[in-house]
């Protein structure tokens, strides 16, 4: 299993897309930190990159990689290897490479300019999001055999998580404005890893606004150890569940 992970990682790291992604992250992180007058403003701009670009690149790159590796996977399956370990190795390889790319591209600049709790949370969340969207991409890829359809599906998924879901939340808010919906909102936010990550970072970044009435409720929950553990566990579930399900699917998939 270790061998395959190693092969996948070396294969991906040689990939030009991955280089471009890393360089893009590096360039944008350094430019936001040097162009904005304050580092916290830089962090905010970086937050947008993390919440939008990282999931997009992770999900699209991973699904394309899995589709392009169809024959390679076939070759591996014909070898004396467990399917489970092949699939998990590919997941491990993708997750590791995307995390490394993120760490080099965004993590290092953050450590240089903002080596504090906020910066560390940001790096952690970025890495988590990278891995979560690898897991989701692999689930989508194993469910749809057609490459074009699969890539369409992952783009839709990305759109859903980064935009449509929040649109629905906004709609719900308007509909149920007269009810005490703060607490259910916490539960709903767990259904979207991007939202959860955003809240985790904001609670450390925009303290002042979060001190308002509703903000206080969110802060009372997400700001505590229980809340932080809850968020991290939910994010981990967002990795484990898709991986578990896609492995199960891959085990009985015809190649």
């Amino acid at each position, binding site marked *: 299993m270790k061998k395959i992970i190693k092969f996948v990682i070396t294969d991906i790291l040689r990939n030009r897309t991955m280089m471009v992604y890393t360089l893009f992250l590096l360039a944008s992180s350094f430019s936001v930190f040097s162009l904005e*007058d*304050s580092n*916290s*403003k830089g962090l*905010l701009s970086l*937050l*947008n990159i993390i*919440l*939008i670009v990282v999931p997009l690149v992770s999900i699209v790159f991973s699904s394309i990689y899995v589709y392009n590796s169809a024959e390679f996977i076939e070759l591996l399956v014909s070898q004396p290897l467990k399917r489970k370990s092949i699939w998990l190795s590919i997941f491990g390889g993708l997750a590791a490479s995307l995390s490394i790319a993120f760490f080099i591209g965004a993590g290092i600049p953050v450590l240089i300019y903002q080596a504090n709790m906020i910066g560390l949370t940001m790096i952690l969340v970025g890495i988590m999001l990278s891995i979560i969207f690898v897991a989701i991409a692999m689930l989508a890829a194993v469910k749809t055999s057609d490459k074009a359809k699969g890539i369409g599906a992952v783009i839709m998924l990305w759109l859903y998580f*980064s*935009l449509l879901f*929040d*649109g629905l*939340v*906004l709609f719900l*808010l*308007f509909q149920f*404005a007269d009810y005490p*919906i*703060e607490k259910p*909102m*916490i539960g709903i*936010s767990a259904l979207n890893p*991007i*939202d959860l990550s*955003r*809240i985790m970072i*904001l609670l450390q970044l*925009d*303290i*002042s*606004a*979060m*001190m*308002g*009435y*509703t*903000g*206080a409720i*969110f802060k009372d929950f997400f700001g505590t150890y229980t809340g932080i553990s809850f968020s991290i566990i939910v994010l981990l579930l967002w990795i484990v569940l898709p991986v578990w399900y896609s492995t199960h699917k891959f085990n009985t998939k015809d190649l």
Partner: protein
Amino acid sequence: MGGYAKVKFLLFVIPFLIYYSAQAKTIHVGAKWEYKSVTAGIQAAKSGDTVLVDAGHYKEKNLIIRKSIVLKGLNYPVLDGEKRYQIVSVMAKGVVVDGFKITHSGISSLEDLSGIKIYDGHNVVIKNNILEDTFFGIFIEKGDNCTIENNRITAFNKAEQQSGNGIHCWQAKGMRIMGNTITGHRDGIYFEFVNKSFIKGNTSTNNIRYGLHFMFSNDDTYLSNVFSNNGSGVSVMFSNRIRMLYNSFLENWGDAAYGILLKEISDGYMEGNRFTKNTSAIYMEGANRIHMKKNTFQNNGWALKIQASCMGVVLERNNFIGNTFDVGTNGSLVLNTFKNNYWDKYEGYDLNKDRIGDIPYRPVSMFSMIVEKYPTAMILFRSFITTLLDKTEKILPSLTPENLKDNAPLMKKAF
């Protein structure tokens, strides 16, 4: 002619001066003096005398001063109210209370027991005292031309009902409140019907409710005070012609906390104040003709919340830096003016290099309007969708007030 008049005046005045300097005595109070208790010392004194109190622990029950004397403590003698009494009551004009440590007053909302209470005081001076664990600190019930200076007032009760105000003025004018430090009271400084007064260099922190709370008080000036970490910040209501200069409003955090709450205020002038890390730096309701100039709003949740009931508010040359939201409102704000402010969120350009942005800045974002209406929407703060909404709203304003804009935003900080 002039010379003669002067001589005549001196002849008239000098005998009085001689009389008073001859009559004004100093009475000592302390373990080694004739008068062991302050009460006894005061009893022996006449108006114009000085009562000097040595260091020691005095339980005088309620010390009532009915003569115009100077009561001065040496090395902070302690006046102890034994948690039952009001400690000092001033009932004469021109009294000076200086250099005491006044502790443990009784608690009674009915009588407003205080560390020092002034009843209808004229020219009373309360200075250099330390007040600890008093229900009300210094209470002025009617006063004219009094000075409250360099006192340190601390209370320890946590509940609002268990705690009075630090400096409480009711029906007074010409007060000078300067250099005091107030901590842990219900309201740090409380004014009701206090006019033409001057409040300078006070520090009011960690009070349970407001750092400064005043109502129905006109023509007052606030200069260089610091209000920080108070339960609800500062509240200014139903007052006219208030001048607030170079004060600091810091870290007033909470769901109903404001750097400063302005309610039913007219003709105010605010300059050079700093608002840092407040949930809402300024909350205005029914404010008219307020001129705000050269103030700094930094790292607040909302820099300004202006309700639709405000008119004629002018904001110019202020700096808005790192606030989550610059302006929040529930109305259209057509009658208020923003000009020449620096907004760090401004994304415009300056082609003619006159240091003024060529396109207007709209300080009210779509999302802040949404949050105003649906507070729970805060959970979507900084999400992709709200960023998109904000951007589209900037290009095609529909929900945000059309006329609320700074037509001449500065490219660089105003000062």
